[in-house]
């Protein structure tokens, strides 16, 4: 009976509260009043009312209809209630309180900045904050999602905004608001807290935090559990997407931490979830996370297209789509028999994780190496000698099963990431074992080997057995070489490899045998392969605009400072031109690389002058590739053409000094390129002028080609513009250009409309009406341009220079029938 009474009264109260809320929604003026009214109820014993109150609190600080100033006053008043509500066990209430705290935190922070004395309020906020941070990992998912938002707000408030004060948003609440001598707020502490929270926030993108814990606790078994920890990525797409959706604002408004966030997002592999178990849900979640990453990165880049991340992000997105397509294809193929062996993705995941692991999360210290562990009395394999892991699984793993390139990749990555002191410890451990082994088995060099090595022994200095740090890297190198050698030995004599292995352990001296000499054919094949690979690298780079390509190195810039498209282009063009210089010089000494031997393709287009020294086959192979590469897409690869031709010309100049009988290459290839391009030029290809203006030398033959262009009605404008441009801006070729123009003027009346201005500017004398005889005399000469053409000009100027500079066009047309 009593219960129903209470219940009905609760029902009534809820109804009243409902109408109060309806009132403030229609008229927000009453909001503060209503909120103050409900605070006692929210702290009361009736849970329904507390639920309602928590929701109303969250709504109050969210709603845009209540003024920020009003919210601040309310926030100070509500802190106690919120702290109390954080002890509730209901997910719904907690969600509302955490949401509410996220709204309140910046307000209280600003309030404390301006009210230095109010330590009590800040204390309350601190209690609230620590309660929320405790729930962050342990609460129900819904609450954790709200915690993520709260943490984002804390990071925003407690980190610095734009470093440029002009860009700073004054209304924004950030660390910059805190006065340096504030009695409560300590700048370094707040900053450090934000950094810590950011690391914790980003950790969801790195790996499963629970795994991380097990790794740090189980040190004796650290090695293997760390690896599993890397492989298992937190599957919880809910937390991951929520985190991702909170990062854009941090990146855009908090430049000091932007790089860290972006690099973490770039290292996050949203596809990994599927490789763990390929269920419908995981596939769906993979798509969701991939899309969320994509939208986030695009948002960041769009906000600042000139920003530092644009290049990396666009590369990453292309790669991501490719990987996703590959993965989906693979999945659909393997649908019948799903195996957990998606190498590509797993590999990438491991790589990225390892990379990131060192950068952001603390690396768990590997177990102390038991120095004299398992020194077996008796024969010991190399694998045993070098294995420091105590894990049986690791020890029994046969590294030879992995493909070589993967192993190289792993070694590379781990060498970058390994801590120096760990490496030192490991080296010392192996060295001690080795020393122990040597003591156990005194060196007795077998006959065969000592004979072989005796001839080389003089050139080899055995490593000192000292244990000081500076020699740390020496021993492993040496022993690795030894293994190489041993492998070769095995190839030669498979039968007695067991003895060899043992005996070699006891040897102090050895020398790597020289590699087998390559046959000419192999040499040629592999150099061609190498060149082809360089070209494929150049192809892979995105076309960046000239502006963004501009190097930031300034004076420090070298021809190939960065391994970007430009750097590789420089490399390949120099390889073609100067790169083979040494080889050519050595021809006499080394007949096996002589050009004529492997020059079976004939590159001699012109003047089969046998005295002229032709370039090596490899140079010409590269040149041919360059030529094909440019011709394939000459508009986009004009820069390659320009730098190549400049290199050729320069090299021709250099070589002419030392090898006067070398065949100059510039003209050959320049004309070849022009022959390739000219047929495809269109009237609108004004960029072509850049090519003409930037190549180092312009020949008469080239201008003849331009002239042919002028005679094509479709491209006449382009041709004449080129001549105009060259005449105007390349004085050394002005005369040659004017010769062409004059020829056009005299012989092609239909172009006169376009050529007249140019002629009147630089060769006004041509316009002067000439006596028929002189014109007739000049006519045959004008066919082959050159000196006789100049003769005409001289004649004309001698006649009447300042007479008819503005000769009417009708006059000129009258002369033409006579001239032609």
């Amino acid at each position, binding site marked *: 009976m009593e219960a129903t009474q209470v219940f009905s009264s609760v029902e009534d109260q809820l109804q009243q509260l409902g109408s109060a809320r309806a009132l403030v929604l229609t008229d927000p003026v009453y909001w503060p009043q209503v909120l103050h009214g409900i605070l006692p109820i929210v702290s009361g014993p009736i849970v329904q009312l507390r639920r309602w109150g928590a929701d109303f609190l969250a709504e109050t600080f969210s709603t845009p209809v209540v003024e920020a100033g009003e919210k601040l006053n309310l926030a100070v008043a509500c802190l106690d209630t919120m702290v109390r509500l954080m002890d509730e066990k209901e997910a719904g209430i907690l969600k509302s309180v955490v949401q509410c705290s996220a709204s309140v935190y910046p307000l209280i922070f600003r309030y404390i900045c301006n009210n230095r004395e109010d330590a009590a309020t800040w204390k309350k906020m601190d209690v609230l904050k620590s309660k929320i941070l405790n729930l962050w990992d342990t609460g129900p998912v819904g609450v954790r999602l709200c915690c993520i938002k709260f943490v984002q707000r804390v990071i925003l408030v407690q980190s610095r905004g734009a470093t440029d004060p002009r860009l700073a948003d004054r209304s924004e609440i950030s660390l910059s608001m805190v006065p340096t001598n504030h009695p409560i707020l300590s700048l370094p502490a707040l900053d450090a807290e934000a950094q810590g929270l950011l690391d914790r926030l980003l950790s969801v993108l790195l790996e499963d935090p629970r795994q991380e814990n097990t790794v740090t606790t189980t040190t004796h078994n650290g090695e293997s559990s760390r690896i599993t920890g890397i492989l298992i990525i937190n599957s919880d797409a809910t937390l991951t997407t929520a985190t991702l959706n909170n990062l854009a604002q941090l990146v855009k408004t908090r430049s000091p931490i932007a790089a860290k966030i972006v690099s973490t997002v770039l290292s996050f592999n949203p596809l990994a979830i599927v490789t763990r178990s390929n269920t419908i849900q995981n596939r*769906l979640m993979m798509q969701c996370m991939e899309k969320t990453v994509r939208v986030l990165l695009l948002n960041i880049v769009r906000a600042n297209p000139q920003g530092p991340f644009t290049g990396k992000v666009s590369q990453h997105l292309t790669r991501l789509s490719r990987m996703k397509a590959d993965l989906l294809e693979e999945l659909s193929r393997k649908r019948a028999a799903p195996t957990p062996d998606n190498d590509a993705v797993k590999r990438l995941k491991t790589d990225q994780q390892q990379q990131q692991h060192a950068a952001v999360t603390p690396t768990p210290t590997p177990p102390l190496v038991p120095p004299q562990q398992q020194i077996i009395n008796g024969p010991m394999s190399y694998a045993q000698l070098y294995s420091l892991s105590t894990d049986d699984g690791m020890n029994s793993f046969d590294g030879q099963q992995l493909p070589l390139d993967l192993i190289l990749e792993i070694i590379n990555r781990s060498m970058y990431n390994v801590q120096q002191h760990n490496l030192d410890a490991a080296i010392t451990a192996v060295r001690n074992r080795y020393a122990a082994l040597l003591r156990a088995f005194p060196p007795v060099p077998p006959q065969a080997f000592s004979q072989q090595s005796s001839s080389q022994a003089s050139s080899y200095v055995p490593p000192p057995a000292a244990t000081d740090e500076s020699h740390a890297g020496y021993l492993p190198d040496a022993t690795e070489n030894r293994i190489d050698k041993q492998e070769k030995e095995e190839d030669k004599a498979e039968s007695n490899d067991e003895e060899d292995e043992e005996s070699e352990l006891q040897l102090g001296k050895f020398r790597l045998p020289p590699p087998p000499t390559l046959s000419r054919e192999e040499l040629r094949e592999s150099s061609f392969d190498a060149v082809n690979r360089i070209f494929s690298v150049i192809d892979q780079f995105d076309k960046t605009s000239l502006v963004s390509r501009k190097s930031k190195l300034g004076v420090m810039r070298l021809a190939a400072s960065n391994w970007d498209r430009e750097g590789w282009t420089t490399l390949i063009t120099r390889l073609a031109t100067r790169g083979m210089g040494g080889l050519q010089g050595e021809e006499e000494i080394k007949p096996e690389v002589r050009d004529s031997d492997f020059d079976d393709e004939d590159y001699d287009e012109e003047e089969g002058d046998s005295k002229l020294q032709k370039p090596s086959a490899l140079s010409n192979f590269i040149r041919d590739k360059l030529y094909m590469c440019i011709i394939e897409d000459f508009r986009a690869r004009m820069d390659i053409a320009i730098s190549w031709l400049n290199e050729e010309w320069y090299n021709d100049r250099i070589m002419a000094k030392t090898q006067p009988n070398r065949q100059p290459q510039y003209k050959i290839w320049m004309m070849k390129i022009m022959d390739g391009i000219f047929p495809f030029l269109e009237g609108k290809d004004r960029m072509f002028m850049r090519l003409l203006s930037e190549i180092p030398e312009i020949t008469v033959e080239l201008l003849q080609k331009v002239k042919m262009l002028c005679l094509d009605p479709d491209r006449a404008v382009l041709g004449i513009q080129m001549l105009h441009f060259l005449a105007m801006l390349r004085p050394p070729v002005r005369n040659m250009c004017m010769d062409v123009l004059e020829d056009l003027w005299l012989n092609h009346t239909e172009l006169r409309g376009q050529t007249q201005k140019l002629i009147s500017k630089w060769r006004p004398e041509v316009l002067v009406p000439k006596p028929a005889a002189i014109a007739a005399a000049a006519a045959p000469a004008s066919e082959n341009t050159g000196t006789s053409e100049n003769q005409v000009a001289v004649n004309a100027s001698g006649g009447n220079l300042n007479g008819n500079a503005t000769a009417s066009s009708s006059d000129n047309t009258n002369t033409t029938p006579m001239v032609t």
Partner: protein
Amino acid sequence: MMQTPPQPRPTAAPAAEAAADVQQKHDDELRGQNGGSGKDFPLKFCTVCASNQNRSMEAHLVLSLSQYPVISFGTGSAVRLPGPSIDKPNIYAFNSTTYDEMYNSLKEKDPRLYHANGLLGMLDRNRRIKGCPERWQDWKVGVPRKDGVEDGVVDVVVTCEERCWDIVVDDLTNRNSPLNRLVHIINIDIKDNHEEALVGGKGILELANMLSEAAREEREKAGPNFIRETVDGRVPDVLAKWQERFPGLPALWTVGYF
């Protein structure tokens, strides 16, 4: 203790009733299947398509008939309806031109054409649901509204096209989440035609039902540490189950904030 919803909601959107007498049969069928499933634990929904005409409005209707609080938006720059040819669409402004005005203008232009291609039927349905198409980008989240969602926030946004999802997620990111309030943004890919919109509407309703059911279960759950949990952690699970039932409507989801 009885489970009383913390915030009493209106039992039915008035717009839904207006629409009901037009599509009596269609609606009865839906009611029969899902009678009042949204009523006792209503998540609030928002449906979004390009022009706030076809797909989002079909879903709006279907959800409101099942008593879910629902609002709807379009993400395009303007409302575009097919015209006499593909290069002559009828373009109207968001937020100002009412469905009724569009209906009358099209009826005046070419009643036979617009009747035959279904536009008049669609606009007639829409003008009984709400006043005019609304643009997502202009939505002031959290400002109280007069319709079913009086506090101006929703729990789930359902977009009907991947592009719209992109725009919504991007737009929410740019707004910097002033409300700090959690929202699930789900895309259900629906082709923009009448038939597919009907299929998609049913799919969205089923998703809403499944989410609400999960929310109810979570709320009644008493875990060792926490009680009355929320649906948020269950969304991936529910969505995957839903996707298995509707493989023709590819889904996408992310957790965002208003």
